[in-house]
């Protein structure tokens, strides 16, 4: 149970870049990827989205596959990022049964289901619909044969994949794990969030008194997790350590967060305890920060309950990438790793006015050469599902 868990590879594809170098370049320039809708076939063109401006057949090309209509956009985005993470980590024998593959997604193949549903495309609505299909397809294309799982806990799905992988590694069930998540934009999701009236027609403004809601996005990210023993064998230097993790449930409402942020408070405080750190050791918080009235206040209150009047620099990176739902936990985990490696603290774009009920304001300028040893990353989802992860620099 004392096994330490290290991150040895990362892969990402999102609206701010199709791979790690592209995303890092966008981050260094505070360049967001939230823009007018050009790909999704919807009447709601007035909601800006974090779309990846590539057609499925272009994604096939990037993934090195012939154009195949049965590959969902969710699978393709996932595949591209898994391949990058594997390359980055230097894993050679991917079919080793001690290497697991844990993925998170909210709606799996919905972007294809909804087209088959109204007969826009031929085919049935069942073969590529379920969440596990994207995981199994990626595993089968890449030849991953170890333990595999798919988690669907709304917007904390891929943070939960990372947490499960860490627990399986500590339990010696796996030596390495590829953990993350993937979600593509769909009309179903856009209309669902619109029916809840929590989308912003402007660029989202997390932690701002005038915040109006979410900008949705799409993407995928995966991290390779390894034990210390496995690192000794491969003689590779890890990117950072995953020190803390916790999941708790708000048990307050199906979609809304509690006024006292209890679920978030439990997740953050348990993750800090697990890491063996103290709240004052956290150098940066990558917040869930969706830009909704409810989340940002509830999350803010939970953070104040833990950090008091010493809240470390905090920002939501969702104005950059859009809220990528099931992929957001993993995307923000990769951003957390990049923050540690490159001594960066990201800006919370579009912020102007402090939330009156809170004492802190988010970090608004990109900080370079910052001391970033420990990063707390929050991912909260519908159903009160709250997960916090803590990434730490290597001693």
């Amino acid at each position, binding site marked *: 149970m004392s096994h330490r868990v290290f991150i040895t590879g990362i892969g990402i594809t999102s609206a701010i870049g199709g791979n790690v170098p592209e995303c890092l370049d966008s981050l260094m320039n505070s360049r967001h990827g939230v823009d007018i809708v050009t790909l999704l076939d919807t009447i709601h063109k007035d909601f800006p989205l974090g779309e990846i401006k590539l057609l499925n057949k272009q994604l096939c090309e990037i993934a090195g596959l012939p154009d195949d209509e049965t590959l969902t956009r969710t699978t393709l985005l996932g595949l591209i990022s898994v391949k990058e993470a594997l390359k980055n980590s230097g894993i050679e024998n991917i079919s080793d049964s001690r290497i697991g593959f844990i993925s998170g997604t909210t709606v799996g193949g919905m972007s294809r289901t909804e087209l088959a549903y109204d007969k826009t495309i031929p085919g049935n609505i069942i073969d590529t619909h379920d969440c596990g299909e994207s995981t*199994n397809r990626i595993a089968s294309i890449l030849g991953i044969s170890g333990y*595999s799982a798919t988690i*669907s806990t709304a917007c904390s799905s891929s943070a939960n994949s990372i947490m499960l992988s860490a627990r399986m590694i500590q339990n010696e069930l796996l030596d390495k794990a590829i953990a993350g998540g993937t979600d593509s934009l769909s009309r*179903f999701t856009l209309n669902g969030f619109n029916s809840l009236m929590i989308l912003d027609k402007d660029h989202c403004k997390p932690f701002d008194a005038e915040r109006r809601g979410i900008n949705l996005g799409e993407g995928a990210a995966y991290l390779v997790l390894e034990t210390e023993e496995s690192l000794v064998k491969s003689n590779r230097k890890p990117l950072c350590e995953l020190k803390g993790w916790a999941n708790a*449930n708000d048990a307050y409402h199906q979609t809304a967060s509690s006024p006292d942020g209890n679920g978030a408070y439990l997740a953050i405080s348990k993750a800090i305890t697990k890491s063996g750190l103290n709240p004052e050791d956290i150098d940066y918080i990558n917040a869930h920060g969706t830009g909704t009235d409810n989340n940002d206040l509830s999350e803010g209150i939970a953070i104040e309950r833990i950090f008091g009047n010493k809240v470390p620099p905090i920002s939501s990176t969702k104005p950059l990438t859009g809220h990528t739902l099931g992929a957001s936990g993993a995307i923000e985990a990769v951003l957390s790793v990049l923050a540690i490696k490159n001594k960066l603290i990201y800006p919370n774009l579009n912020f102007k006015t402090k939330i009156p009920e809170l004492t802190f304001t988010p970090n608004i300028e990109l900080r370079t050469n910052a001391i970033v040893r420990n990063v707390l990353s929050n991912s909260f989802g519908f159903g*009160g599902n709250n997960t916090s992860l803590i990434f730490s620099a290597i001693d």
Partner: protein
Amino acid sequence: MSVFIKGMGLIAPNWDCENKKFHIDPNSNLIPYLTCMEPDYKKFINPVAIRRMSKILKMGTTSAKIALNDAGLDNVDAIVLGTGFGCFSDTTVFLDAMLDNAEKQLTPTAFIQSTHNSVNSQIALMLKCNGYNYTYSHGGLSFENALTDAIMLLNDKDAENVLVGGFDEITDLMYTSMKSAGWCVGDTIFGESCGMFVLTNVESDFNYCKIDDIRTSTTEVDFGRNIFRFLEDNNLHINDLDLILEGSTDTRWLTEQKLAPDVPLFEMWKHITGESMTATVNALNFAASIIKTQQIPDELVIKGRIKSNYEKVLILNNFRNLTQSLILVSKC
């Protein structure tokens, strides 16, 4: 550390969940798939809450409540569930509304309930359970993912009582889609069910059985070999098993041509409760009951050699030859 089943709740076709016995529905052949025998939900769940719930939410919360009652508990430390298709009915209600109304004037209820973890969160709300809460959706291994996680939580002593379960519903549209996608091969009858279990790491005379081991595979060529490797790793020979619950539908791994005459008593349960991505929940419920009562219900059709007692039971599931799971349970 050993993991035990302490309580169970099952809502399934041809199954009377209140009296915990089979109740064969004479009209079940009127539609080409099997649907659950639903209880009077008001007996278990707040009637005000029920009115807003879709069928799968009612089945999920009710079977959870039955399992907790059975275990004599008011709450658990964690809720870990698996579902293949999630809340499919709500998903199609929202899709229909979206397409019929050209994306205009939509209400959010079906969208909210369509979320894969809505059953988990309804149970957490009902119990006021702030603990660990995970939903797996991994095709034919969705429940097995959940069970693997629950066992790990108990081994780590992160929890003393875990609610673990699996659920899937079937609708006309799902059935016709499965049929057109070529899923209904051989004598496969699709169905639905919702099975919940309270697992504990605390020994007690009231526990149903012990869960010794679970293993999953997605490599079809290994399915036959896996059974023997799994038994070997548990220091067992196939003759040591007292019963095999075999969940193959179109391929019968254990029929005479494959593994007989070594095969002990075996039963294929899917003719009664149907096939689904989480059909294993039915077999685990039956296995635990058989071990506890030392009785096999008449409705389960036995083949092979009859044994005098049931101490070791192997559950073997196979979903569409894509996934295989093996679960070994034994007398406490």
